[in-house]
Protein backbone atom coordinates (compact mmCIF):
# COMPACT_ATOMS: atom_id res chain seq x y z
CA UNK A 1 0.00 0.00 0.00
CA UNK A 2 1.55 3.25 -1.07
CA UNK A 3 1.52 6.37 1.02
CA UNK A 4 -1.34 8.82 0.49
CA UNK A 5 -0.05 12.27 -0.45
CA UNK A 6 -3.38 14.03 -0.60
CA UNK A 7 -6.60 13.09 1.10
CA UNK A 8 -9.95 14.81 1.55
CA UNK A 9 -12.64 13.83 4.01
CA UNK A 10 -16.22 15.02 3.78
CA UNK A 11 -15.02 18.08 1.88
CA UNK A 12 -17.71 20.69 1.35
CA UNK A 13 -17.82 24.05 -0.34
CA UNK A 14 -20.56 26.55 -1.06
CA UNK A 15 -20.50 29.82 -2.92
CA UNK A 16 -22.20 32.59 -0.95
CA UNK A 17 -25.55 33.67 -2.34
CA UNK A 18 -26.87 37.19 -2.06
CA UNK A 19 -27.87 37.94 1.49
CA UNK A 20 -30.97 39.67 2.66
CA UNK A 21 -30.51 42.76 4.79
CA UNK A 22 -30.42 41.08 8.20
CA UNK A 23 -30.43 37.46 7.17
CA UNK A 24 -27.54 35.11 7.29
CA UNK A 25 -25.75 34.69 3.95
CA UNK A 26 -27.15 31.64 2.24
CA UNK A 27 -24.80 29.28 0.44
CA UNK A 28 -25.15 27.35 -2.75
CA UNK A 29 -23.34 24.14 -2.03
CA UNK A 30 -21.35 22.90 -5.03
CA UNK A 31 -19.05 20.36 -3.37
CA UNK A 32 -21.10 18.04 -1.21
CA UNK A 33 -18.91 15.85 0.91
CA UNK A 34 -16.07 14.59 -1.28
CA UNK A 35 -13.68 11.88 -0.10
CA UNK A 36 -10.67 11.18 -2.27
CA UNK A 37 -7.19 9.83 -1.60
CA UNK A 38 -4.31 10.28 -4.02
CA UNK A 39 -1.33 7.95 -3.45
CA UNK A 40 2.10 9.51 -3.95
CA UNK A 41 3.24 9.15 -7.56
CA UNK A 42 -0.22 8.42 -8.94
CA UNK A 43 -2.57 10.38 -11.18
CA UNK A 44 -6.24 10.79 -10.33
CA UNK A 45 -8.64 11.76 -13.11
CA UNK A 46 -11.48 14.01 -12.03
CA UNK A 47 -14.28 13.83 -14.57
CA UNK A 48 -17.53 15.68 -14.79
CA UNK A 49 -19.61 17.85 -17.09
CA UNK A 50 -20.16 21.58 -16.78
CA UNK A 51 -21.62 22.42 -13.41
CA UNK A 52 -20.39 19.22 -11.78
CA UNK A 53 -18.02 21.17 -9.51
CA UNK A 54 -14.77 19.71 -10.87
CA UNK A 55 -12.99 23.05 -11.23
CA UNK A 56 -14.15 24.14 -7.78
CA UNK A 57 -12.81 20.90 -6.31
CA UNK A 58 -9.48 21.44 -8.09
CA UNK A 59 -9.24 24.93 -6.63
CA UNK A 60 -9.97 23.60 -3.16
CA UNK A 61 -7.19 21.01 -3.46
CA UNK A 62 -4.60 23.70 -4.23
CA UNK A 63 -6.24 25.93 -1.60
CA UNK A 64 -7.14 28.74 -3.96
CA UNK A 65 -10.49 28.30 -2.20
CA UNK A 66 -11.14 27.58 1.45
CA UNK A 67 -13.50 24.72 2.23
CA UNK A 68 -16.76 25.46 4.04
CA UNK A 69 -16.18 22.32 6.07
CA UNK A 70 -14.34 19.02 5.92
CA UNK A 71 -10.68 18.16 5.65
CA UNK A 72 -7.85 18.38 3.15
CA UNK A 73 -4.71 16.59 4.25
CA UNK A 74 -1.51 17.13 2.29
CA UNK A 75 1.49 14.99 3.20
CA UNK A 76 0.06 14.42 6.65
CA UNK A 77 -0.69 18.09 7.34
CA UNK A 78 -4.26 19.43 7.57
CA UNK A 79 -4.34 22.35 5.10
CA UNK A 80 -8.08 23.03 4.89
CA UNK A 81 -7.99 25.65 7.62
CA UNK A 82 -4.55 27.19 7.07
CA UNK A 83 -4.32 30.93 6.37
CA UNK A 84 -2.22 32.47 3.61
CA UNK A 85 0.92 32.89 5.70
CA UNK A 86 0.84 29.30 6.89
CA UNK A 87 0.14 28.09 3.37
CA UNK A 88 3.06 29.92 1.80
CA UNK A 89 5.74 27.26 2.30
CA UNK A 90 3.30 24.60 1.06
CA UNK A 91 2.38 26.54 -2.07
CA UNK A 92 5.78 25.75 -3.54
CA UNK A 93 4.96 22.06 -3.29
CA UNK A 94 1.42 22.35 -4.69
CA UNK A 95 0.99 23.79 -8.17
CA UNK A 96 -1.76 24.26 -10.69
CA UNK A 97 -1.76 24.21 -14.49
CA UNK A 98 -4.61 26.21 -15.97
CA UNK A 99 -6.89 25.50 -18.89
CA UNK A 100 -6.09 28.51 -20.97
CA UNK A 101 -2.38 29.32 -21.18
CA UNK A 102 -3.27 32.31 -23.35
CA UNK A 103 -4.74 34.07 -20.36
CA UNK A 104 -2.65 32.52 -17.60
CA UNK A 105 0.73 33.58 -19.01
CA UNK A 106 1.51 37.26 -18.61
CA UNK A 107 1.50 38.65 -22.20
CA UNK A 108 4.01 41.37 -21.30
CA UNK A 109 6.71 39.11 -19.90
CA UNK A 110 9.19 37.04 -21.83
CA UNK A 111 8.85 33.34 -21.11
CA UNK A 112 12.19 33.23 -19.31
CA UNK A 113 10.92 35.77 -16.77
CA UNK A 114 7.55 34.06 -16.32
CA UNK A 115 9.18 30.68 -15.77
CA UNK A 116 11.67 31.86 -13.18
CA UNK A 117 9.40 34.27 -11.33
CA UNK A 118 8.18 31.60 -8.88
CA UNK A 119 11.84 30.87 -8.11
CA UNK A 120 12.65 34.49 -7.34
CA UNK A 121 9.47 34.81 -5.26
CA UNK A 122 10.80 32.01 -3.08
CA UNK A 123 14.34 33.39 -3.06
CA UNK A 124 15.75 30.43 -4.90
CA UNK A 125 17.62 32.32 -7.63
CA UNK A 126 21.29 33.15 -7.45
CA UNK A 127 21.78 35.97 -9.93
CA UNK A 128 21.20 36.52 -13.62
CA UNK A 129 23.30 33.58 -14.75
CA UNK A 130 21.27 31.22 -12.60
CA UNK A 131 18.01 32.64 -13.93
CA UNK A 132 19.05 31.95 -17.51
CA UNK A 133 20.21 28.42 -16.68
CA UNK A 134 17.02 27.58 -14.78
CA UNK A 135 14.79 28.93 -17.57
CA UNK A 136 16.73 26.86 -20.12
CA UNK A 137 16.43 23.74 -17.99
CA UNK A 138 12.67 24.20 -17.58
CA UNK A 139 12.15 24.80 -21.29
CA UNK A 140 14.03 21.68 -22.28
CA UNK A 141 12.19 19.69 -19.64
CA UNK A 142 8.93 20.34 -21.51
CA UNK A 143 10.44 19.96 -24.97
CA UNK A 144 10.68 23.63 -25.96
CA UNK A 145 13.82 25.15 -27.53
CA UNK A 146 15.87 27.17 -25.02
CA UNK A 147 15.68 30.24 -27.29
CA UNK A 148 12.03 30.49 -26.29
CA UNK A 149 13.15 32.17 -23.06
CA UNK A 150 13.25 35.42 -25.03
CA UNK A 151 9.83 35.02 -26.62
CA UNK A 152 6.49 36.45 -25.58
CA UNK A 153 3.42 34.19 -25.16
CA UNK A 154 1.74 35.52 -28.31
CA UNK A 155 4.67 34.28 -30.39
CA UNK A 156 3.85 30.69 -29.44
CA UNK A 157 1.32 28.19 -30.78
CA UNK A 158 -1.39 26.83 -28.48
CA UNK A 159 0.53 23.63 -27.80
CA UNK A 160 3.76 25.51 -27.10
CA UNK A 161 1.96 27.85 -24.71
CA UNK A 162 0.55 24.88 -22.81
CA UNK A 163 4.06 23.42 -22.57
CA UNK A 164 5.17 26.76 -21.10
CA UNK A 165 2.28 26.59 -18.61
CA UNK A 166 3.48 23.16 -17.54
CA UNK A 167 7.08 24.39 -17.24
CA UNK A 168 6.01 27.21 -14.95
CA UNK A 169 4.11 24.82 -12.72
CA UNK A 170 7.26 22.69 -12.48
CA UNK A 171 9.60 25.58 -11.64
CA UNK A 172 9.45 25.05 -7.89
CA UNK A 173 9.76 21.28 -8.18
CA UNK A 174 6.35 20.60 -6.65
CA UNK A 175 5.26 17.14 -5.52
CA UNK A 176 1.61 17.72 -6.34
CA UNK A 177 -0.01 19.26 -9.43
CA UNK A 178 -3.62 19.95 -10.33
CA UNK A 179 -4.12 20.20 -14.10
CA UNK A 180 -7.48 21.72 -15.03
CA UNK A 181 -8.69 20.86 -18.57
CA UNK A 182 -5.24 21.60 -19.91
CA UNK A 183 -5.66 19.91 -23.29
CA UNK A 184 -9.30 20.68 -24.09
CA UNK A 185 -8.56 23.67 -26.31
CA UNK A 186 -5.91 21.89 -28.36
CA UNK A 187 -5.99 20.09 -31.70
CA UNK A 188 -5.95 16.29 -31.64
CA UNK A 189 -2.35 16.10 -32.84
CA UNK A 190 -1.13 18.56 -30.19
CA UNK A 191 -3.31 17.04 -27.48
CA UNK A 192 -1.62 13.64 -27.76
CA UNK A 193 1.82 15.27 -27.48
CA UNK A 194 0.88 17.09 -24.28
CA UNK A 195 -0.70 13.97 -22.74
CA UNK A 196 2.43 11.95 -23.43
CA UNK A 197 4.61 14.78 -22.10
CA UNK A 198 2.67 14.70 -18.81
CA UNK A 199 3.08 10.94 -18.69
CA UNK A 200 6.79 11.20 -19.20
CA UNK A 201 7.24 14.01 -16.64
CA UNK A 202 5.25 12.09 -14.11
CA UNK A 203 7.53 9.06 -14.49
CA UNK A 204 10.69 11.16 -14.53
CA UNK A 205 9.88 13.49 -11.64
CA UNK A 206 7.67 11.19 -9.59
CA UNK A 207 4.82 13.71 -9.72
CA UNK A 208 1.46 13.19 -8.08
CA UNK A 209 -1.35 14.69 -10.12
CA UNK A 210 -5.04 15.41 -10.27
CA UNK A 211 -6.08 15.65 -13.91
CA UNK A 212 -9.41 17.43 -14.37
CA UNK A 213 -11.27 16.80 -17.60
CA UNK A 214 -14.73 16.45 -19.10
CA UNK A 215 -13.36 13.79 -21.45
CA UNK A 216 -13.10 10.22 -20.20
CA UNK A 217 -10.95 9.16 -23.16
CA UNK A 218 -8.16 11.50 -22.01
CA UNK A 219 -8.36 10.11 -18.50
CA UNK A 220 -7.83 6.62 -19.81
CA UNK A 221 -4.52 7.68 -21.37
CA UNK A 222 -3.00 9.30 -18.32
CA UNK A 223 -4.65 8.31 -15.04
CA UNK A 224 -4.42 5.44 -12.55
CA UNK A 225 -7.68 6.20 -10.77
CA UNK A 226 -10.76 8.10 -11.80
CA UNK A 227 -13.45 9.89 -9.81
CA UNK A 228 -16.70 10.77 -11.58
CA UNK A 229 -18.19 13.95 -10.21
CA UNK A 230 -21.86 14.61 -10.60
CA UNK A 231 -23.65 17.52 -9.04
CA UNK A 232 -20.88 18.03 -6.47
CA UNK A 233 -20.67 14.41 -5.40
CA UNK A 234 -18.36 11.59 -6.37
CA UNK A 235 -20.69 8.97 -7.82
CA UNK A 236 -18.02 6.55 -8.97
CA UNK A 237 -14.43 6.13 -7.88
CA UNK A 238 -11.89 3.47 -8.67
CA UNK A 239 -8.97 2.26 -10.76
CA UNK A 240 -9.26 3.37 -14.39
CA UNK A 241 -9.19 -0.21 -15.70
CA UNK A 242 -12.11 -1.23 -13.47
CA UNK A 243 -14.27 1.84 -14.12
CA UNK A 244 -13.88 1.55 -17.90
CA UNK A 245 -14.43 -2.20 -17.91
CA UNK A 246 -17.44 -2.27 -15.59
CA UNK A 247 -18.86 1.13 -14.69
CA UNK A 248 -21.15 0.82 -11.67
CA UNK A 249 -23.08 4.08 -11.73
CA UNK A 250 -25.71 4.82 -14.39
CA UNK A 251 -24.21 8.26 -14.97
CA UNK A 252 -20.77 6.80 -15.71
CA UNK A 253 -22.31 4.40 -18.20
CA UNK A 254 -24.13 7.29 -19.81
CA UNK A 255 -20.94 9.34 -20.08
CA UNK A 256 -19.11 6.42 -21.67
CA UNK A 257 -21.94 5.76 -24.11
CA UNK A 258 -22.04 9.41 -25.16
CA UNK A 259 -18.40 9.49 -26.28
CA UNK A 260 -18.41 9.22 -30.06
CA UNK A 261 -15.71 6.69 -30.94
CA UNK A 262 -14.23 7.05 -34.41
CA UNK A 263 -16.03 3.95 -35.70
CA UNK A 264 -19.14 3.90 -37.84
CA UNK A 265 -21.94 2.63 -35.64
CA UNK A 266 -25.41 2.61 -37.18
CA UNK A 267 -28.07 3.30 -34.60
CA UNK A 268 -25.90 5.51 -32.39
CA UNK A 269 -28.08 8.48 -33.33
CA UNK A 270 -31.39 6.66 -32.98
CA UNK A 271 -32.01 5.93 -29.33
CA UNK A 272 -32.32 8.87 -27.05
CA UNK A 273 -31.61 7.62 -23.55
CA UNK A 274 -33.13 9.79 -20.84
CA UNK A 275 -30.31 11.96 -19.64
CA UNK A 276 -29.56 12.27 -15.95
CA UNK A 277 -28.23 15.80 -15.65
CA UNK A 278 -27.24 17.77 -12.61
CA UNK A 279 -30.06 20.20 -11.97
CA UNK A 280 -28.79 23.73 -12.30
CA UNK A 281 -29.52 25.61 -9.13
CA UNK A 282 -30.40 29.28 -9.02
CA UNK A 283 -30.40 30.71 -12.51
CA UNK A 284 -31.75 28.69 -15.40
CA UNK A 285 -28.41 29.07 -17.19
Amino acid at each position, binding site marked *: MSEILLRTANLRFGYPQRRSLFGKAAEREVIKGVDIAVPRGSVLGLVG*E*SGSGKTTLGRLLVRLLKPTSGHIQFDGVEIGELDDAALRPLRARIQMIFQDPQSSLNPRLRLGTTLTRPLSAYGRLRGKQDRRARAAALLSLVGLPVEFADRYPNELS*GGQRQRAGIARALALEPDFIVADEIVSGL*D*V*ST*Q*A*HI*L*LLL*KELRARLGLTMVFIS*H*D*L*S*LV*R*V*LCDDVAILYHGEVVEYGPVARV*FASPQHAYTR*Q*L*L*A*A*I*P*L*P*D*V*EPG*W*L*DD*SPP*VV*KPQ*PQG*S*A*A
Partner: protein
Amino acid sequence: MTAALAIDNLRISIGAANVLRGVSLEVEAGEVRGLVGESGAGKSMLGRAVLGLLPANAAIMSGHIAFEGRDLLQMREAERRKLLGRRIALIPQDPMTSLNPVKRIGAQIGNLLRHHLKLSKRAALQRATELLTEVAIREPQRVLSLYPHEISGGMRQRVLIAMAFACDPALVIADEPTTALDVTVQRQVLQLVERLRLRHGSAVLFITHDLGVVAKICRSMTVLHAGRVLEEGDTAEVLAHPRHAYTRALLAATPRADRPAETLRPVPPALIAQLWSEAHRLDLLDTARSA
Protein backbone atom coordinates in the same frame (compact mmCIF):
# COMPACT_ATOMS: atom_id res chain seq x y z
CA MET B 1 -29.21 14.49 -59.71
CA THR B 2 -27.58 17.85 -59.07
CA ALA B 3 -25.44 18.03 -55.96
CA ALA B 4 -26.65 20.35 -53.20
CA LEU B 5 -23.16 21.80 -53.10
CA ALA B 6 -20.35 21.41 -55.59
CA ILE B 7 -17.12 23.25 -54.89
CA ASP B 8 -14.59 23.19 -57.67
CA ASN B 9 -10.92 24.10 -57.32
CA LEU B 10 -11.57 26.87 -54.79
CA ARG B 11 -8.62 29.10 -53.93
CA ILE B 12 -8.81 31.70 -51.20
CA SER B 13 -6.05 33.98 -49.94
CA ILE B 14 -5.75 36.37 -47.05
CA GLY B 15 -3.07 38.85 -48.03
CA ALA B 16 -0.09 36.84 -49.21
CA ALA B 17 -1.19 33.70 -47.36
CA ASN B 18 -3.12 30.99 -49.15
CA VAL B 19 -5.92 29.59 -47.03
CA LEU B 20 -7.55 27.25 -49.52
CA ARG B 21 -5.30 25.78 -52.20
CA GLY B 22 -7.68 24.46 -54.83
CA VAL B 23 -10.34 22.59 -52.87
CA SER B 24 -12.99 20.50 -54.60
CA LEU B 25 -15.80 18.74 -52.78
CA GLU B 26 -19.40 17.75 -53.29
CA VAL B 27 -22.32 17.34 -50.96
CA GLU B 28 -25.07 15.28 -52.55
CA ALA B 29 -28.68 16.31 -51.97
CA GLY B 30 -29.84 14.97 -48.62
CA GLU B 31 -26.36 13.74 -47.68
CA VAL B 32 -24.22 14.58 -44.64
CA ARG B 33 -20.59 15.17 -45.51
CA GLY B 34 -17.97 15.71 -42.86
CA LEU B 35 -15.23 18.27 -43.40
CA VAL B 36 -12.43 17.31 -41.02
CA GLY B 37 -9.34 19.27 -40.18
CA GLU B 38 -7.34 20.82 -37.39
CA SER B 39 -7.07 24.54 -36.71
CA GLY B 40 -5.59 26.34 -39.68
CA ALA B 41 -6.78 23.71 -42.16
CA GLY B 42 -9.18 26.20 -43.74
CA LYS B 43 -12.37 24.30 -42.96
CA SER B 44 -14.25 27.21 -41.41
CA MET B 45 -13.07 29.48 -44.22
CA LEU B 46 -14.62 27.09 -46.71
CA GLY B 47 -17.93 27.19 -44.84
CA ARG B 48 -17.85 30.97 -44.74
CA ALA B 49 -17.11 31.14 -48.47
CA VAL B 50 -20.26 29.14 -49.20
CA LEU B 51 -22.29 31.44 -46.96
CA GLY B 52 -20.74 34.58 -48.45
CA LEU B 53 -19.41 35.50 -45.04
CA LEU B 54 -15.69 35.71 -45.79
CA PRO B 55 -13.74 38.29 -43.81
CA ALA B 56 -13.16 41.52 -45.74
CA ASN B 57 -9.45 40.80 -46.24
CA ALA B 58 -10.04 37.37 -47.79
CA ALA B 59 -10.03 37.10 -51.58
CA ILE B 60 -11.37 34.31 -53.76
CA MET B 61 -8.60 33.77 -56.32
CA SER B 62 -10.36 31.20 -58.45
CA GLY B 63 -12.88 28.39 -58.44
CA HIS B 64 -16.61 27.81 -58.34
CA ILE B 65 -19.14 27.23 -55.59
CA ALA B 66 -22.27 25.74 -57.11
CA PHE B 67 -25.43 25.48 -55.06
CA GLU B 68 -27.98 23.21 -56.74
CA GLY B 69 -26.12 23.77 -59.98
CA ARG B 70 -25.92 27.58 -59.84
CA ASP B 71 -22.60 29.28 -59.19
CA LEU B 72 -22.95 31.40 -56.06
CA LEU B 73 -19.88 33.41 -57.03
CA GLN B 74 -21.43 34.56 -60.34
CA MET B 75 -24.77 35.42 -58.77
CA ARG B 76 -25.94 38.97 -58.10
CA GLU B 77 -25.59 39.91 -54.45
CA ALA B 78 -29.35 40.45 -54.03
CA GLU B 79 -30.09 37.07 -55.50
CA ARG B 80 -27.54 35.36 -53.29
CA ARG B 81 -28.84 37.03 -50.17
CA LYS B 82 -32.26 35.61 -50.87
CA LEU B 83 -30.81 32.11 -50.61
CA LEU B 84 -28.97 32.65 -47.36
CA GLY B 85 -30.83 31.70 -44.24
CA ARG B 86 -33.58 30.20 -46.39
CA ARG B 87 -32.12 27.69 -48.88
CA ILE B 88 -28.63 27.71 -47.33
CA ALA B 89 -28.51 27.86 -43.55
CA LEU B 90 -25.86 27.88 -40.85
CA ILE B 91 -25.60 26.17 -37.49
CA PRO B 92 -22.84 28.21 -35.85
CA GLN B 93 -20.20 26.97 -33.45
CA ASP B 94 -20.78 29.25 -30.54
CA PRO B 95 -24.32 29.31 -29.19
CA MET B 96 -23.31 32.05 -26.75
CA THR B 97 -22.50 34.75 -29.28
CA SER B 98 -24.73 33.74 -32.19
CA LEU B 99 -28.00 34.94 -30.73
CA ASN B 100 -28.80 38.59 -30.17
CA PRO B 101 -28.49 39.07 -26.38
CA VAL B 102 -31.02 41.90 -26.20
CA LYS B 103 -33.84 40.25 -28.15
CA ARG B 104 -36.19 37.57 -26.93
CA ILE B 105 -35.89 34.14 -28.55
CA GLY B 106 -39.38 34.50 -29.99
CA ALA B 107 -38.57 37.79 -31.72
CA GLN B 108 -35.40 36.32 -33.25
CA ILE B 109 -37.11 33.27 -34.70
CA GLY B 110 -40.15 35.36 -35.66
CA ASN B 111 -38.04 37.85 -37.64
CA LEU B 112 -36.45 35.05 -39.60
CA LEU B 113 -39.78 33.49 -40.51
CA ARG B 114 -41.42 36.77 -41.42
CA HIS B 115 -38.46 37.87 -43.53
CA HIS B 116 -37.94 34.66 -45.51
CA LEU B 117 -41.38 33.07 -45.55
CA LYS B 118 -43.42 36.29 -45.39
CA LEU B 119 -45.49 34.90 -42.56
CA SER B 120 -47.83 37.12 -40.59
CA LYS B 121 -46.88 37.91 -37.01
CA ARG B 122 -49.37 35.42 -35.74
CA ALA B 123 -48.43 32.64 -38.15
CA ALA B 124 -44.75 33.23 -37.34
CA LEU B 125 -45.41 32.81 -33.64
CA GLN B 126 -47.34 29.62 -34.33
CA ARG B 127 -44.53 28.27 -36.52
CA ALA B 128 -41.86 29.26 -33.98
CA THR B 129 -43.68 27.26 -31.32
CA GLU B 130 -43.75 24.24 -33.62
CA LEU B 131 -40.07 24.60 -34.40
CA LEU B 132 -39.08 24.63 -30.74
CA THR B 133 -41.25 21.60 -30.12
CA GLU B 134 -39.45 19.90 -33.00
CA VAL B 135 -36.09 20.40 -31.27
CA ALA B 136 -37.50 18.90 -28.07
CA ILE B 137 -37.82 22.09 -26.07
CA ARG B 138 -40.50 21.35 -23.56
CA GLU B 139 -42.22 24.62 -22.82
CA PRO B 140 -41.87 26.35 -26.19
CA GLN B 141 -44.22 29.22 -25.34
CA ARG B 142 -42.23 30.11 -22.24
CA VAL B 143 -38.85 29.79 -23.97
CA LEU B 144 -39.99 32.10 -26.77
CA SER B 145 -40.48 34.84 -24.19
CA LEU B 146 -36.98 34.43 -22.71
CA TYR B 147 -33.68 36.13 -23.53
CA PRO B 148 -30.70 33.99 -24.66
CA HIS B 149 -28.88 34.35 -21.32
CA GLU B 150 -31.84 32.85 -19.51
CA ILE B 151 -31.43 29.42 -21.12
CA SER B 152 -28.60 26.85 -20.98
CA GLY B 153 -25.91 26.43 -23.63
CA GLY B 154 -27.43 23.18 -24.85
CA MET B 155 -30.83 24.82 -25.19
CA ARG B 156 -29.35 27.80 -27.05
CA GLN B 157 -27.80 25.36 -29.51
CA ARG B 158 -31.24 23.76 -29.98
CA VAL B 159 -32.75 27.16 -30.73
CA LEU B 160 -30.06 27.79 -33.36
CA ILE B 161 -30.70 24.38 -34.91
CA ALA B 162 -34.42 25.13 -35.03
CA MET B 163 -33.64 28.42 -36.79
CA ALA B 164 -31.30 26.73 -39.28
CA PHE B 165 -33.98 24.27 -40.38
CA ALA B 166 -36.87 26.77 -40.12
CA CYS B 167 -37.18 27.38 -43.86
CA ASP B 168 -36.53 23.81 -45.10
CA PRO B 169 -33.02 24.56 -46.38
CA ALA B 170 -31.50 22.42 -49.13
CA LEU B 171 -28.08 22.85 -47.52
CA VAL B 172 -27.01 23.40 -43.93
CA ILE B 173 -23.46 24.35 -43.01
CA ALA B 174 -22.83 23.06 -39.49
CA ASP B 175 -19.64 24.72 -38.23
CA GLU B 176 -18.40 22.73 -35.21
CA PRO B 177 -21.86 22.96 -33.61
CA THR B 178 -21.06 20.64 -30.71
CA THR B 179 -17.49 21.59 -29.86
CA ALA B 180 -18.46 23.67 -26.83
CA LEU B 181 -20.91 21.11 -25.43
CA ASP B 182 -20.63 18.32 -22.86
CA VAL B 183 -20.60 14.81 -24.34
CA THR B 184 -24.10 13.88 -23.21
CA VAL B 185 -25.52 17.12 -24.62
CA GLN B 186 -23.43 16.66 -27.76
CA ARG B 187 -25.06 13.31 -28.38
CA GLN B 188 -28.54 14.80 -28.05
CA VAL B 189 -27.67 17.64 -30.39
CA LEU B 190 -26.27 15.22 -32.98
CA GLN B 191 -29.43 13.12 -32.72
CA LEU B 192 -31.44 16.26 -33.26
CA VAL B 193 -29.51 17.34 -36.35
CA GLU B 194 -29.96 13.85 -37.79
CA ARG B 195 -33.71 13.89 -37.16
CA LEU B 196 -34.25 17.37 -38.56
CA ARG B 197 -32.16 16.94 -41.67
CA LEU B 198 -34.13 13.79 -42.49
CA ARG B 199 -37.45 15.50 -41.90
CA HIS B 200 -36.56 18.62 -43.87
CA GLY B 201 -34.65 16.77 -46.59
CA SER B 202 -31.55 18.93 -46.15
CA ALA B 203 -27.97 18.16 -47.10
CA VAL B 204 -25.42 19.00 -44.40
CA LEU B 205 -21.78 19.99 -44.62
CA PHE B 206 -20.60 19.11 -41.12
CA ILE B 207 -17.38 20.91 -40.19
CA THR B 208 -15.53 19.36 -37.25
CA HIS B 209 -12.13 18.40 -35.90
CA ASP B 210 -13.57 15.33 -34.17
CA LEU B 211 -13.29 12.04 -36.06
CA GLY B 212 -15.71 10.49 -33.57
CA VAL B 213 -18.43 12.96 -34.49
CA VAL B 214 -17.79 12.34 -38.19
CA ALA B 215 -18.05 8.60 -37.68
CA LYS B 216 -21.46 8.98 -36.07
CA ILE B 217 -23.23 11.48 -38.33
CA CYS B 218 -21.47 11.73 -41.71
CA ARG B 219 -21.90 9.29 -44.56
CA SER B 220 -18.95 10.72 -46.45
CA MET B 221 -15.97 12.75 -45.38
CA THR B 222 -13.24 15.04 -46.65
CA VAL B 223 -9.94 15.49 -44.81
CA LEU B 224 -8.47 18.96 -45.13
CA HIS B 225 -4.97 20.11 -44.20
CA ALA B 226 -3.27 23.39 -45.04
CA GLY B 227 -6.11 24.22 -47.41
CA ARG B 228 -5.73 21.00 -49.40
CA VAL B 229 -7.95 17.92 -49.60
CA LEU B 230 -5.77 15.01 -48.55
CA GLU B 231 -8.39 12.31 -48.61
CA GLU B 232 -12.08 11.89 -49.22
CA GLY B 233 -14.57 9.09 -49.46
CA ASP B 234 -17.17 7.04 -47.72
CA THR B 235 -16.79 7.53 -43.93
CA ALA B 236 -16.80 3.83 -43.11
CA GLU B 237 -14.18 3.20 -45.77
CA VAL B 238 -11.90 6.12 -44.83
CA LEU B 239 -11.96 5.31 -41.12
CA ALA B 240 -11.43 1.59 -41.62
CA HIS B 241 -8.81 1.91 -44.39
CA PRO B 242 -7.37 5.42 -44.38
CA ARG B 243 -5.18 5.91 -47.45
CA HIS B 244 -3.39 9.12 -46.51
CA ALA B 245 -0.69 9.09 -43.83
CA TYR B 246 -2.24 12.19 -42.23
CA THR B 247 -5.63 10.52 -41.80
CA ARG B 248 -3.92 7.49 -40.27
CA ALA B 249 -1.93 9.77 -37.94
CA LEU B 250 -5.05 11.66 -36.82
CA LEU B 251 -6.80 8.38 -36.01
CA ALA B 252 -3.82 7.12 -34.04
CA ALA B 253 -3.66 10.41 -32.09
CA THR B 254 -7.33 10.31 -31.08
CA PRO B 255 -7.61 9.00 -27.50
CA ARG B 256 -10.18 6.21 -27.29
CA ALA B 257 -12.14 5.35 -24.19
CA ASP B 258 -12.35 1.74 -25.38
CA ARG B 259 -8.64 1.13 -25.79
CA PRO B 260 -5.68 1.07 -23.42
CA ALA B 261 -3.43 4.10 -23.21
CA GLU B 262 -0.51 2.47 -25.00
CA THR B 263 -2.28 2.65 -28.36
CA LEU B 264 -2.11 6.46 -28.49
CA ARG B 265 0.39 7.81 -31.05
CA PRO B 266 0.86 11.54 -31.45
CA VAL B 267 1.01 12.94 -34.99
CA PRO B 268 4.71 12.94 -35.99
CA PRO B 269 5.86 16.56 -36.30
CA ALA B 270 7.90 15.50 -39.35
CA LEU B 271 4.67 14.56 -41.15
CA ILE B 272 3.12 17.96 -40.44
CA ALA B 273 6.29 19.71 -41.59
CA GLN B 274 6.30 17.65 -44.78
CA LEU B 275 2.65 18.48 -45.51
CA TRP B 276 3.27 22.19 -45.09
CA SER B 277 6.31 22.11 -47.32
CA GLU B 278 4.27 20.29 -49.97
CA ALA B 279 1.64 23.00 -49.70
CA HIS B 280 4.23 25.74 -50.08
CA ARG B 281 5.81 23.97 -53.02
CA LEU B 282 2.40 23.97 -54.71
CA ASP B 283 2.15 27.70 -54.07
CA LEU B 284 5.46 28.26 -55.81
CA LEU B 285 4.38 26.17 -58.78
CA ASP B 286 1.18 28.20 -59.03
CA THR B 287 3.02 31.49 -58.92
CA ALA B 288 5.42 30.26 -61.57
CA ARG B 289 2.55 29.10 -63.77
CA SER B 290 0.59 32.33 -63.52
CA ALA B 291 3.69 34.51 -64.06
